[in-house]
């Protein structure tokens, strides 16, 4: 199976500060991958580049086979290609119900006219119900998203990502600010999601990463420092230096 996303030789700098420095990275279809790294390693900038929010100064980002150049597409076009993104802080539409949030994310035509004439039918409502069960919010469908707890909002956002039915999920620190029980639920959600699509999880928390049990990429100063199983990278001398200081 070929690579789903291929990032090669990407660099970007802000006012002289190199946030990403000749980064190369690739992920296969249906792969679960954790990306770790200290603060300022360029994890979020990496996601910004893949999702089209930031344009790199140089390098290539290609999607699928044959490779499609993501750098020429807008954020929404990239999202429609099948890359879903979850932000660090939960971002759901707080003034709308859980059901409306999920309906909006549901994979449908995204143009204004389709949205204007769209009316939810039984099939779509059924899908939303299914997703709600999956993320454990079936009780909360008619509630406003703003009334949910922090963890529930995170799950709702993951549910919205799943509703988009993407081939690649980019998840930024999903466990931040969660109780241990919530973390466990989140781990399960992500693992189940990875059975049908590729998932990239950016995370600080080693325990969380260990529970995911997948290949790990370590970023440092905007470049890949090490890659492999968690045990392999944690025993890598470079990684130890970076995390513990020289």
């Amino acid at each position, binding site marked *: 199976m070929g690579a789903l996303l291929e990032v090669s030789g990407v660099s970007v700098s*802000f*006012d002289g*500060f190199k946030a990403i420095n000749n980064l190369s990275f690739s992920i296969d279809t249906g792969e679960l991958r954790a990306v770790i790294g200290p603060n300022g390693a360029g994890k979020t900038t990496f996601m910004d580049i893949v999702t089209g*929010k930031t344009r790199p100064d140089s390098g290539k980002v290609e999607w699928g086979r044959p490779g499609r150049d993501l750098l020429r597409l807008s954020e929404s076009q990239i999202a429609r290609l099948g890359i879903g993104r979850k932000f660090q802080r939960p971002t759901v539409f707080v003034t709308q119900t859980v059901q409306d949030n999920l309906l909006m994310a549901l994979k449908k035509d995204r143009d204004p006219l389709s949205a204007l004439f769209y009316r939810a039918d039984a099939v779509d409502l059924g899908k939303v119900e299914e997703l709600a069960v999956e993320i454990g919010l079936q009780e909360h469908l008619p509630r406003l998203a703003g009334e949910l707890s922090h963890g529930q909002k995170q799950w709702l956002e993951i549910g919205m990502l799943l509703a988009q039915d993407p081939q690649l999920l980019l998840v930024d620190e999903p466990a931040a600010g969660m109780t241990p029980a919530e973390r466990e639920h989140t781990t399960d959600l992500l693992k189940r999601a990875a059975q049908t699509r590729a998932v990239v999880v950016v995370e600080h928390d080693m325990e969380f990463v260990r529970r995911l049990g997948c290949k790990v990429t370590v970023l440092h100063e905007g470049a890949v420092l090490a890659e492999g199983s968690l045990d392999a990278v944690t025993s890598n001398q470079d990684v130890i230096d970076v995390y513990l200081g020289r």
Partner: protein
Amino acid sequence: MRLLILCLLSASIFLTIRQPVALANDLQPVLQENASVIERPSRQTAGIAIEALFASGAAGVTHFLAQWRDKQVWRTKEDGIFYFGPDARGDIELVDIDTGESAGTVSSRDLVQVKPNSGVRAVIDAALVRFQLSDPDPTVRAVALDTLERSADASQLIPLRASIQEETDPDLRSRKERLEGLLIISYGQSAEERIAAMERFKGDTGIDVRAAINPLLATRLEVAKSLPGDKNVARTLVPGRDIDLDVAYAMLVDADFAPAPVTRADRNAALVSHAADGRIGAILLETLNTEAARDAAYQSLAETGKVPPTVGAEERGSLLANHVFYEVYAEPDRAVTAAAVGTLNSINRAVDLNQLADLALDALSLASIYFLAAIGLAITFGVMGVINMAHGEFIMMGAYTGYVVQQFISNYTVSILVALPLAFAVTFAAGVLLERLVIRHLMHRPLETLLATFGVSIALQQLAKNIFGTQARPLTAPEWLDGSLAFNDIVSISYIRIAIFVLAVIFFLLLLFILKRTRLGLEVRAVTQNPSMASSMGINPDRINMLTFGLGSGIAGIAGVAIGLFAQVTSELGANYIVQSFMTVVVGGVGNIWGTLAGAGMIGSLQKIIEWFNPSNTLAAQTYMIMFVIIFIQFRPKGIIALKGRAAGD
């Protein structure tokens, strides 16, 4: 006086010997000879009389002329003798014209005052000027030159030349030489002399030079069968390209080269006059409701010979093609006009360059005003992310503060010096008040802040109207700011604008210093780039917001005083500048003084450049400028100087 003696009274060796008896060179007898003209002169007769006075060789002619001009000459009713006497009523103390001694006091009822009208006075002046040009007093010579520069004619060329030789003052000498050159251009004897004079003035931007040369190049439009060889033709004109076809045809008609065209009105009148019983021949009048039908009806009349035939398009075309339309110079000498064109071209090039310099000065002064008006806005926008729609009203408050101060302090210099800090204080306080009462409570809701400050804006504007009325109030600049610094006839800048430029530079440097070199500036920059980080470092963002808002508003007050000095103070003063200020901030980029400087420079020069292309229409200039800004934002959405990276905020 020496010239007087030399030129006119060389024969008079008795000048210094004063005797009560009439002498050969006494003026009174000459005056008596011309008495009727002197008492009631006209422009024509006065000139003749003056020449007669000079020709007589009598002493004191110039003195008499000056007194005559100033209405200080009287004539007794009894014996018709002329005397000097003050221009007054009642008892007049008379002075003998020749001896200069008192001749007793006479009631004005027994006298006739000799009062030349203004036209005659001008004639006298012109006669006097020649002598004043050689007056020992340089101020008199300068005044005489002023007169001559305003109205010179051929007769003054010789006395002017004569006076140049003995001129000792270098300034006056060069002025005289310049005037001599100009007079030669207009009245010179030979073509060579005139051409040489024109050569001297190449590239000279003075208005007087163009005034002297332009008449040489005046042209007259003429038409002929073929181009005449004996005339000084400026250019030929092609009908339809250089000259309107109808105008050209009308010229042919005037010159009897072509039959008069039948105009629509002629045609209609002819149709009406040949109509009878609602029809013209077989044609019903009701059917003549199109141009084509009327033309056809007229044609049928023309065929019967009742009306003159129309000139067909073809005939008209061939008539126009068979004649030459040309402009001919009033000046017959080709060499002279060619030299004039050459000099004028070189002058125009110099004038263009100077106008460019003047435009640059204008743009600079406009940019200074925009900078002062916008910098406060830019600071608050940069630090707090809010647009203060009431900023314009703070500018207005500053201007009114200046006005009120002038009501109490009558010395304009002192009042401006008091008004500047006071305006700053007043608007600083208003800004702090607005920040504490309104803006602080709308943190992170920039659109609502915009609307709330708009509410403040309309309330303040109406309040100003209620307090000060709708009529404009003056804010008078001190006298030393009156007038302007003129580099030549084209490039000049008023002192007020220089003062505003200086003010803008001072505030630019001051703000640069505050932001880069002081603790407050450090904190302001920290809050601008990352408010939450700044507050976790122990900076109190509330205090910073309040101070920056006050500072921004305070500068608006200063800008108000500055603007009030050259514009009328009304309640709409600020509103007139607010959109330009917004444009300046948007174009320049947020949170950076250099950005505002660049924005102000760009908006100011752009407006001036557009006005230059279309000087009559400032409304259009503003329209195009705004359209330009909208397009500009496409290419630099964050302004000329944009913050990059995380600090820019996404």
